């Protein structure tokens, strides 16, 4: 079978939709669907990493910051609902007597959802534009982002009374009175997530096919030349970084809904690096590959850690080395080879 790159891509997107909307819901019960949903939460981040890293060359090791933001925002709302009209339990334990002012907006679901989408925009944009304007890029940018995520973890843990500290935020089970832990709730959240994810992958593919998508590649390969064609490349890079931040935040919110807890480790450097690995395994130049990579690595993590609790990390590390070694462009490359997609 010989097919063009365009056909191959359509095939991949259709296959992903079929898998998420048809095969998995039919084949899996609520317990497994909930697990898949958790893995898919990370795939939002992986799609963002494909856009920023794969296409624009911006390696961020701090995506966990935005993932964590979305997760905490959602968890704060759920926690307030769970403990209303009292203060959240961890606040009481730390003798916090009044709800901190920055918690107050999160008693409204509308505001919570809006903040999940909107807050990362100015934060990520200003942070990234300031750095890219100074022509800091490549490894140095990665170091700045990893430092940012480590700093925020320390800050978060230090504020036990306001953030839940090292324990994070736990113990919530309803969304506007709707049970999210029972089977019907898990399945409903899965559907919401899949619709959001397929929207994201479709928009990402459209973005990459626009002139802006070509510009991303141009900036990745020859940033100087792009600047000397009259573009403010810092603006282009900050924009795509912001897009990836919003995707991460949405993924974080979906994670909080399905995992039933958020902890500071979500923000941390280890999560951030793992997220890059998901994208690399799936294929850093493939939006669909990133989703599959997140699913696969997520599943392997669960499976291996259950069956080989002592040594599972070695398997995971081994898999990563294998993929990078044999398939530098990830699993997406394998499919391209099988289907003989022309470059």
């Amino acid at each position, binding site marked *: 079978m010989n097919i063009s790159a365009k056909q191959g891509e359509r095939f991949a997107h259709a296959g992903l939709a079929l898998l998420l909307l048809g095969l998995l819901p039919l084949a899996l019960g609520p317990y497994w669907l909930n697990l898949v949903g958790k893995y898919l939460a990370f795939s939002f981040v992986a799609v963002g990493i494909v856009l920023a890293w794969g296409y624009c060359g911006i390696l961020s090791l701090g995506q966990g910051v935005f993932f964590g933001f979305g997760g905490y925002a959602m968890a704060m709302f759920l926690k307030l609902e769970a403990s209303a009209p009292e203060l959240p339990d961890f606040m009481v334990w730390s003798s916090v007597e009044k709800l901190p002012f920055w918690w107050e907006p999160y008693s409204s679901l509308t505001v919570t959802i809006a903040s999940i989408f909107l807050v990362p925009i100015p934060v990520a944009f200003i942070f990234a534009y300031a750095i890219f304007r100074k022509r800091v890029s490549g490894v140095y940018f990665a170091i700045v982002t990893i430092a940012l995520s480590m700093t925020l973890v320390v800050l978060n843990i230090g504020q036990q009374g306001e953030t839940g500290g090292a324990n994070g935020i736990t113990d919530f089970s309803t969304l506007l009175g709707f049970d999210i832990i029972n089977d019907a709730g898990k399945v409903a959240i899965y559907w919401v997530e899949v619709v959001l994810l397929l929207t994201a992958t479709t928009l990402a593919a459209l973005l990459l096919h626009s*002139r802006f998508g070509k510009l991303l590649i141009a900036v990745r390969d020859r940033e100087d*030349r792009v600047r000397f064609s009259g573009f403010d490349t810092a603006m282009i890079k900050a924009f795509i970084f912001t897009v990836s931040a919003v995707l991460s935040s949405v993924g974080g919110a979906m994670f909080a809904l399905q995992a039933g807890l958020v902890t500071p480790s979500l923000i941390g450097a280890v999560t951030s690096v793992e997220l890059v690995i998901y994208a690399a395994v799936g294929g850093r130049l493939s939006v669909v590959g990133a989703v599959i990579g997140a699913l696969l690595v997520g599943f392997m993590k669960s499976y291996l850690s259950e069956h080989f609790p002592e040594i599972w990390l070695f398997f995971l590390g081994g898999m990563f080395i294998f993929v990078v070694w044999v398939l530098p462009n990830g699993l997406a490359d394998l499919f391209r080879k099988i289907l003989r997609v022309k470059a």
Partner: protein
Amino acid sequence: MDNALASTSFAVASERPESTTARPLVNAKSTPMNGKILSIEALTVSFDGFKAVDGLDMSIDENELRVVIGPNGAGKTTLLDMICGKTKPTSGSIRFRGTELGKLSDYQIVRLGVGRKFQTPSIYEDLTVAENLEISIPQVHGVWASIFFRRSKEVRERIGYVAEEIMLKDHLRMKSGKLSHGQKQWLEIGLLLMQDSDLMLLDEPVAGMSPREREETAELLKRIANGKSLVVIEHDMDFVRSIAKKVTVLHQGRLLSEGSVEEVQNDPRVIEVYLGH
């Protein structure tokens, strides 16, 4: 010679209105400088005390094709770097149609109408020739405008026209990384043509080209110079002779000599430092 001059000034009159419609903003801001597109005064840059360019004065006319020559380390590339904003001058002034360039950032200078071709071909190898050209369209520099950009008929025609001009019409759909070295050089010149720069700075455009490609490039540059100003750095004296009316010789960051190819070649100072070697 007189004829050529007359036809260029004719070109000024007939070509101007066109570029006014293409980029009204630029022309509104700029003030004419007695037919000079670029004037450089007392330009100096020093790197850790070493003066790569030292008190240089020179000017380029509208629609002029100027060749800059000089031995290695004469400051040729550094001069172009300063004009296009890649290197900031230590002191002195560079004015493009009356606008001081020293304080502007590189992409702002490009938007005024100064284009730069680098020494090694600098193109987007992962994109096709057509995509390379499309990216360089001057009016669309914003993020949103790029996302919602549609290839209009005019854009396609412009890409076709430039591709024809740079002899790559048959390669529009080819990944530009697969082009030959000489074709890559042409493509980068094509990017500047798409940008519609009024002043093009070309750093060794025929480096690594076959003799036939050199001839074709000479013809290409002469065609371009009809309506634009060009500053070309070149080592190959045969090539210089084939395109240049006026040559500037730099030596150790200073202006050594300026004039026609013959004048420069007969200048004893030039013979001593450069051609005599």
